[in-house]
């Protein structure tokens, strides 16, 4: 079975399969490809046989008038229909899996920018163009863009997700150890084809050690009050700490409480992942996309019982700043042992060291 998989993969020039998802997508690919080839070959052979068999013999040759029986047309429609819908059912169920990150996934914020990729770990370091993740653990990417639309593409994972300016999209994967190229798949100008990155999937223990190391460096840098990057945002401390600071300086906390009390706007405590009833009757889940949208287009989805008085923060908050605030909101949970979010085995509180 593995040999067959490998053989077909090579025939079709597909890159290595870096995850179980990639393997399952390839299996569907092989199924669709082989049946398509068979179907096409059959149809074309029939056509060829007719062409050879029914050559014109006389200049004035007449031909019989033939019309199909309805059952023939029905079969010609029904056969492909069943086949196409089967493929669709398999492909769509895989897509649903891809669109539904597991709850325990580790989050990484991805920001596309002409022409580089930036990665930020909640409570951890930032990096450019190289994304390090642990092998065998689900990793959720929360993507945005600073300028135009980019698309985060890892061929080895059969994974692609557009990064849009002004809002967040998400995707996830659980990869095998290895190093895989990252491309930008959405045309973004002069440096589009040079917007390359690398996904480094490390054994989990190695990753934890690496993350730990970087947390300490970050902490030291924060204590020295020394910015470590020259971007327009303050990257001192973890994303969560930045979020708390930005929320205060931007005036968010004048209207939103963090302790569950009702104020001008809804409280942030336990907001993340909760079901929110909207003024227009809909109920939605307060995920990152909703939180970001509420900063950028506050009047698009107003929580039931509140007035649409919040100004837009479009243009006032950069992508990473919005991400930091979202991360801060996520940390505000009554069931959390501390104000810090649960991050699975990766998380080691830096301040305790």
């Amino acid at each position, binding site marked *: 079975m593995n040999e067959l998989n490998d053989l077909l993969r090579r025939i*079709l*020039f*597909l890159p290595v399969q870096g995850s179980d998802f990639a393997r399952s*997508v390839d299996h*569907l690919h092989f199924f669709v*490809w082989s049946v*398509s080839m068979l179907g*096409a070959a059959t*149809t074309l052979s*029939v*056509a060829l046989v*007719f*062409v050879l068999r*029914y*050559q*014109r013999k*006389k*200049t004035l*040759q*007449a*031909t019989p*008038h033939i*019309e199909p029986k309805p059952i023939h*047309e029905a079969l*010609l*429609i029904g056969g492909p*229909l069943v086949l*196409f*819908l089967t*493929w*669709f059912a398999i492909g*769509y169920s895989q*897509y649903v899996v*891809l*669109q539904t990150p597991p709850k325990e996934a580790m989050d990484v914020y991805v920001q596309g920018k002409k022409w580089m990729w930036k990665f930020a770990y909640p409570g951890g370091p930032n990096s450019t163009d190289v994304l390090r993740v642990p092998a065998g653990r689900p990793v959720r990417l929360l993507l945005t863009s600073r*300028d*135009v*639309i980019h*698309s985060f593409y890892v*061929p080895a994972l059969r994974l*692609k*997700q*557009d990064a*849009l300016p002004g*809002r967040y*999209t998400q995707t996830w994967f659980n990869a095998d150890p290895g190093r895989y190229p990252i491309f*930008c*798949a*959405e*045309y973004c*100008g*002069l440096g*589009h*084809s*040079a917007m390359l990155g690398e996904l480094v999937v490390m054994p989990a223990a190695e990753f934890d050690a690496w993350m730990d190391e970087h947390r300490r460096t970050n902490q030291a840098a924060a204590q020295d009050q020394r910015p470590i990057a020259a971007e327009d945002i303050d990257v001192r401390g973890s994303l969560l700490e930045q979020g708390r600071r930005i929320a205060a300086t931007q005036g968010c906390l004048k209207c939103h409480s963090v302790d569950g009390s009702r104020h001008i706007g809804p409280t942030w405590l336990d907001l993340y992942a909760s079901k929110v009833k909207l003024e227009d009757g809909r109920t939605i889940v307060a995920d990152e*996309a909703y939180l970001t949208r509420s900063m*950028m*287009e506050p009047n698009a989805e107003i929580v039931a019982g509140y007035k649409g008085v919040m100004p*837009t923060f*479009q243009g006032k908050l950069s992508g990473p700043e919005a991400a930091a605030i979202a991360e801060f909101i996520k940390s505000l949970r009554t069931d959390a042992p501390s104000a810090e979010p649960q991050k699975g085995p990766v998380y080691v509180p830096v301040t305790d060291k």
Partner: protein
Amino acid sequence: MSLSPTSDAVYNSPNYLTAPTGIRSWLLTLDHKRIGVMYLALVVAAFALGGFFALLLRLELLTPGPTVMDAMTYNRMFTLHGVIMIFLFMIPAIPGVFGNFFLPLMLGAQDVAFPKINLLTVYLYLIGATIAVWGMIQGGTDTGWTFYTPYSTTTVTTLSPVLLGAFILGMGSILTGLNFIVTIHTLRAPGISWMRMPLFVWAMYATSIIQVLATPVLGMTLLLVAIEKTFGFGIFDPARGGDPILFQHLFWFYSHPAVYIMVLPAMAVISEVVQTFARKNMYGYKAVAFSSLGIAFVGFFVWGHHLFTSGQSTFASGVFGVLSMFVGIFTAVKVFNWTATLYKGAIQVSTPFVYFLGFLYFLIFGGLTGIALSTVSLDVHWQDTYFVVAHFHFIMVGATMMAFLAALHYWWPKMFGRMYSERWSLAASLLVILGFNATFIPQFLLGNMGMPRRYYSYPQQFQSLNVASTAGASVLGFGFVLVLVYLVASFFSGRVAGPNPWGSRGYEWDTPSPPNLLNFPETPVITRGPHEYQDGPSAEVTHGH
């Protein structure tokens, strides 16, 4: 059979090409046949220009790094190639040339319903094309033909002229569609009931509906982009409070049906060609006729399959994916019926028939890759890679271009009254089909490997397949030049064709070649369906077996 405009008076009266004479008589003509010929000259020129840019692109991609141009020039080239091929060739080609020329002839009419509007569309094309091409070259537009926001509204290059050009071209497209719909409804000769219309007319009818309904949305969308770009209103750019995905929805609401504006006319041509050269009535006339309408209808509800990786809701992606399958079903119906038409036929393998076989082959693979792309999870890997590029070139060049060439070779004797060299045309058809395969099969594999489209430079591992593709493109280009050479030769010195060299029972062949200025001396009365060969071919076979 009572369609017999063969009186001496008709044959002795001057044909549409020679009377009246003078450049003014062409520029101000209201004759649908002359307008068709003018469109032919214009779209061939556009195709040559777009093809030239395509060859430059392939040349640049010969090596992983810079080869003959810088990144900015490359980005401008693929924008020029895309805009010219889509808006100046693919959309107007078959309706503009063969629709104009043959729709009235197939309906037994003297002209289209609105001849003046018909002439207007030629000038709209000319004005739109000039503005668009001049604007792109002058302003260096680098957005690609899809104009995705916010890249397009924030790029430093000029965009408004090409948007204005496309807007004007869109108006021409709407008017052509409107003209055809009215013509089909009101100008059918006595005896041509809906179920006796040639299948070419059915598919042109479906095309026209899409042109009239979808093109206004493109016009509005392009206008909004121009407004954002020029006046800074926030419509699509999130930095100004806009929504970048909204553009993609509006754009594809037109541009996906527009794919069927390009491919339905190809199917229209193929239905005629297969019946004539297999000398056989269409197996499943109704199925083929209604599947055209089916494609036109479902085509409006599948645009979201361009947005599977955009963050569109999972449910929406599912709906768009499953609806896309139905386009595949309607296409499969046509493929099966064309194939079955060959059964018990009397097949003559002439150049148009070779292009029919090429068309069938490309449509099957182009269609099946389209089905594969609609299975959603596979699209996540292929979206915006060379796989998609290869897929739509299989449909657009493979199917539509083959059909355009089939139409050109099938109707050439009718349009210009002369035959072309069968030997050279067969050789060229094989070169074109071979070159096309060599160009685009490697691109499918590049897409599988994960090479994104619109890549100026690429990692080393993609090179060998890119070299193969460029080699194929040069064969393809050579094939097209060959076609041009022997057709020009035929125009001046080809053997006189006679009214019906193929013995076709299509209504349009019951006229002299080239047709008389008024088409028919008196309105014909039709007493049979098109392409019925129980009594053999039309009597006036002057060429072939």
